């Protein structure tokens, strides 16, 4: 095994940044090159559909860009050669070279963290007021329109689309969500809970139209209306397209990596090709904690995988598997939704609260006789207790018994405070 003297990280976002930081933490003092397609230094994405879209404060200042690190920190403290503004276009795994523009950058170890990009609606290019929401530039464009009081239509009732609708409502603007499927959020939370969470929209004054497709987005230079498959039309000044993401792997065609819903890797985040690892939204890896293959699209996994991939890339002989109980959160209106585990379950049971009355509720997911997932709405004090149980392979019966004691305790507390 040759010693690693140059680590190259492709993708300068969360997973890429955590890879760089973890590499230095191991004591590695060789070269690090960080390649990013965007002009921007690494920034945090979750705020882009939440707080960053919010209105100005009393002093008139809009929310600040959620940068992760300054250029000085990256260059001087972390000793990273940061190359921004041009994508990597090819990988040669025999010669161990990454192509960026006219440069061929050699690596001993490589971490690929190119994430994912937004799916777009064909035929809307060049129409002002129609955006996806994946990047800082997208978010700035959306915020401009919200500032101007745009009537907002969101296409796709996923988490990000729902957050945008919620922000528009908070600003007192009209918001409509159009969703082609009969029930939203099924892939992320299952049927029953998808419908229950979606009811939050109506409760908060957002119109939700499910089971109807979009047939056209019309306007003269800028968007004016969204025409639906049933012939009806919704007036709009802003259309945000939230119909999912595609892993950014085009540049890897012909590289010899296995590409299938992202970059296929083992439980160590290794691609099977010497020196090449993957992390974050682009990685389709085997998650030993749940015993299934997954490609995550969440913050926690991207951060942890970035660090794990770098450590394994620098010391493959002592590689450690990365396993996790997936976790994501989403903030709509004044509600926090949290999910841990997998929604792929044999049974979903509501164990506390009632979605119909709003407020707080908890649902558990069973696979076989095991607890496999948990969903809470405003249940911040509950959710992580289930994550710990899932991590330990806890049983369904134990989880139900635990839920019952928590429910009683909560009731007693409420009664005592009246």
């Amino acid at each position: 095994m040759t010693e690693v003297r140059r680590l190259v990280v492709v993708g300068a976002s969360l997973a890429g940044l955590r890879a760089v930081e973890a590499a230095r933490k191991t004591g590695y003092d060789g070269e690090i090159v960080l390649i990013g397609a965007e002009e921007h230094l690494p920034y945090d994405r979750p705020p882009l559909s939440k707080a960053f879209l919010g209105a100005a404060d009393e002093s008139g200042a809009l929310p600040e860009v959620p940068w992760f690190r300054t250029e000085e920190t990256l260059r001087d403290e972390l000793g990273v050669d940061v190359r921004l503004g041009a994508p990597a276009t090819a990988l040669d795994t025999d010669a161990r070279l990454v192509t960026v523009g006219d440069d061929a950058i050699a690596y001993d170890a490589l971490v690929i963290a190119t994430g994912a990009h937004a799916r777009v609606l064909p035929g809307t290019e060049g129409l002002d007021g129609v955006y996806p929401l994946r990047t800082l530039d997208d978010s700035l464009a959306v915020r401009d329109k919200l500032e101007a009081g745009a009537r907002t239509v969101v296409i796709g009732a996923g988490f990000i689309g729902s957050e945008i609708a919620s922000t528009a409502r908070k600003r007192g603007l009209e918001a409509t969500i159009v969703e082609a499927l009969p029930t939203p959020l099924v892939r992320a939370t299952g049927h029953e809970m998808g419908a229950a969470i979606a009811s939050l929209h109506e409760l908060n004054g957002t119109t939700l139209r499910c089971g109807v497709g979009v047939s056209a987005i019309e306007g003269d230079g800028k968007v004016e209306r969204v025409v639906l498959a049933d012939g009806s039309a919704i007036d709009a000044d802003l259309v945000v397209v939230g119909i999912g993401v595609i892993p950014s792997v085009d540049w890897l065609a012909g590289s010899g990596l296995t590409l299938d819903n992202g970059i296929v890797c083992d439980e160590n985040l290794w691609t099977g090709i010497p020196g090449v690892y993957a992390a974050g939204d682009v990685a389709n890896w085997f998650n030993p904690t749940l015993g299934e293959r997954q490609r995550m699209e969440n913050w926690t996994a991207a951060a942890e995988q970035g660090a794990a991939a770098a450590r394994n890339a620098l010391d493959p002989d002592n590689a450690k598997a990365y396993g996790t109980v997936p976790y994501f959160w989403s903030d709509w209106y004044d509600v926090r939704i949290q999910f841990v585990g997998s929604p792929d379950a044999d049974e979903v049971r509501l164990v506390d609260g009632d979605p119909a009355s709003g407020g707080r509720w908890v649902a558990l997911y069973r696979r076989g006789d095991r607890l496999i997932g948990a969903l809470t709405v405003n249940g911040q004090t509950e959710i992580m207790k289930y994550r710990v149980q899932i991590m330990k392979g806890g049983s369904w019966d134990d989880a139900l018994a635990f839920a019952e004691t928590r429910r009683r305790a909560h009731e007693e507390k409420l009664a005592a405070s009246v």
Partner: protein
Amino acid sequence: MKCVTVDFDKCTGLGICESLAPDFFEVNDDGELLLLKAEISDTELQEVEEAVNGCPTEALKIVDQ
């Protein structure tokens, strides 16, 4: 002695720290983080480090006191 500190201006109560180091952190009903203890023994260091790295708002730090 190593201790963990929380920057409550940054913390948004997401609770990832609680799932990684439940002896140190708990999020309450109002979504606020409670620091259950601060001093870290050698055997606990790894789990607290994981919590520090897992926090999406970078609100946690380990300091020598």
